[in-house]
């Protein structure tokens, strides 16, 4: 019952520790990462295996467009949703159950809580994302090696593409966290997530030329594709600027979360 003073670093450590316990103590975290890993590695294997099987009958233009790195990441579309869900759940589950009130009563500095969630979920997602990315790459190259189509990490652009794929998954967690904080509802936030990563590129892709590319290069997953692909597609940004666009999505999502979190009643 005595007043306790704590320095700012200690308080940051407090919320980080709390969020780490929350993330590691629910099964959904492990389940989501497992689904992401199986989807990324599995689909990547199927696509690269198909490449190797059909290589002999492929046209010259198809062979020229063949990208051994990008093809091994064909399963990223499903993995990105799983990581998005991880980010969404990190905060929406607290709003849905009402636990957010306990959280904010224990830590009234709400932006510190958002920052801690972003740091903990982000670091775990980055580690898991990179792990999945490397596993996906090596599995894909193993499948391609049947036709000697495989590349190594030493191949120009290959390591950059693998690292970018892992980073993209972490960005999806941050985007999910931002959407979860703004929408406060699991199903709603995941729907919005699907909108951002699937619906938006589909709609943009249907726009008349050249608007499909002019706008499309700013969408998060088309930008991410340029960071992973060996050669950027015509009209799109190169890997460097595309990487900044992908990172900007994470920054905007977390900033939005920080903005709304102090402006609404819990």
């Amino acid at each position, binding site marked *: 019952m005595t007043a306790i003073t704590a320095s700012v670093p200690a308080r940051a450590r*407090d919320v980080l520790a709390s969020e780490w316990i929350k993330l590691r*103590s629910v*099964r959904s975290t492990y389940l989501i990462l497992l689904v992401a890993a199986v989807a990324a590695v599995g689909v990547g294997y199927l696509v690269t295996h198909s490449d190797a099987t059909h290589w002999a009958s492929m046209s010259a233009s198809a062979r020229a467009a063949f990208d051994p790195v990008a093809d091994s990441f064909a399963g990223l579309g499903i993995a990105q949703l799983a990581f998005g869900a991880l980010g969404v759940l990190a905060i929406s589950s607290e709003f849905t159950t009402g*636990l957010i009130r*306990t959280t904010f009563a224990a830590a009234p*500095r709400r932006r510190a809580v958002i920052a801690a969630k972003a740091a903990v979920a982000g670091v775990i997602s980055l580690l898991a994302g990179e792990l999945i990315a490397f596993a996906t790459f090596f599995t894909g190259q193993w499948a391609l090696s049947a036709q000697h189509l495989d590349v190594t990490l030493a191949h120009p652009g290959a390591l950059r593409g693998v690292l970018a794929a892992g980073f993209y998954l972490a960005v999806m967690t941050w985007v999910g966290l931002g959407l979860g904080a703004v929408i406060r509802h699991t199903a709603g936030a995941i729907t919005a997530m699907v909108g951002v990563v699937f619906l938006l590129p589909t709609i943009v892709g249907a726009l008349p030329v050249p608007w499909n590319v002019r706008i499309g290069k700013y969408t998060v997953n088309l930008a991410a594709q340029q960071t992973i692909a060996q050669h950027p597609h015509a009209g799109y940004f190169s890997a460097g600027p595309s990487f900044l666009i992908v990172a900007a999505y994470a920054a905007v999502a977390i900033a939005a979360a920080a903005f709304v979190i102090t402006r609404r009643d*819990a």
Partner: protein
Amino acid sequence: MIEVHELTKRYGHAVAVDGLSFTVHPGRVTGFLGPNGAGKSTTMRVILGLDAPTAGWATVGGRPYQRLVRPLHQAGALLDAGAVPGGRTARDHLLAIAASNGIGARRVAEVLGLAGLDSVAGKRVRGFSLGMKQRLGIAAALLGDPPVLMFDEPVNGLDPEGVHWIRGLFKSLAAEGRTIFVSSHLMSEMALTAEHLIVIGRGRLVADAPIEEVVRQGSRNDILVRSPAGGALAGLLSQRGGAVTAETDGGLAVTGLDAAEIGDLAREHGIALHELTPRHASLEEAFMELTKDSVDYHADLPADTRKAA
């Protein structure tokens, strides 16, 4: 100590709390009583800095809650026992809350014991009964060993043994000099736990007084008299200084005289009495009397629903 000053909270056009002021003092259990929708939960959320007041302010230990560093050491609260993560174990749930205030695993084990949850500490909260969730919420409130504790409807869903436990816990916490603030919509529950009452209705203060005083203010004790010669008896009772009100069913509600005086008076005049019943308003009736003008929704009941107690 909790202070609430001229607190107003509006949600759109709806006024949940309307210029509410009160102080909750340490060393006793203070009941926070009001019909459903009176603004109790809103007031508690504002005290905890969860909802921003439209006007006015609230402090805990003299400071706005949001300014507290490691606030669980200053105040603990149970707002909604159902607000727990189903997928986490009881221990992990408490460890996460504790960590945010620099509280370690040893204290978590202590409060699990205090709440009688030792045996289920490693079980996921999803399978808990409401009563077990209430205990878990109380354990969470106690983590920081705080001088101020707030509980919103804590006995809901508890079995009789749990209710008994919680009453004893509140009293012992108050006896240690802590400020205990407990909301309820049930006067009968408050009567068994609280020494002091803050009663609100439609977001306004209705009463802020020791519980006995609230009961006295809110009730009019009388004696029901029935007699075949009711008219004559009414006149005699009035002459003797009693106040007589005729009830719809022919009975007489008498105040100012006790049952013995009424009985003797009737005997002196040879008047037969068919009923002579002292009636005391129950706590529940005192409460309803207090808040009758301020309930949002109430059923239309027959004019006289008071029962002899």
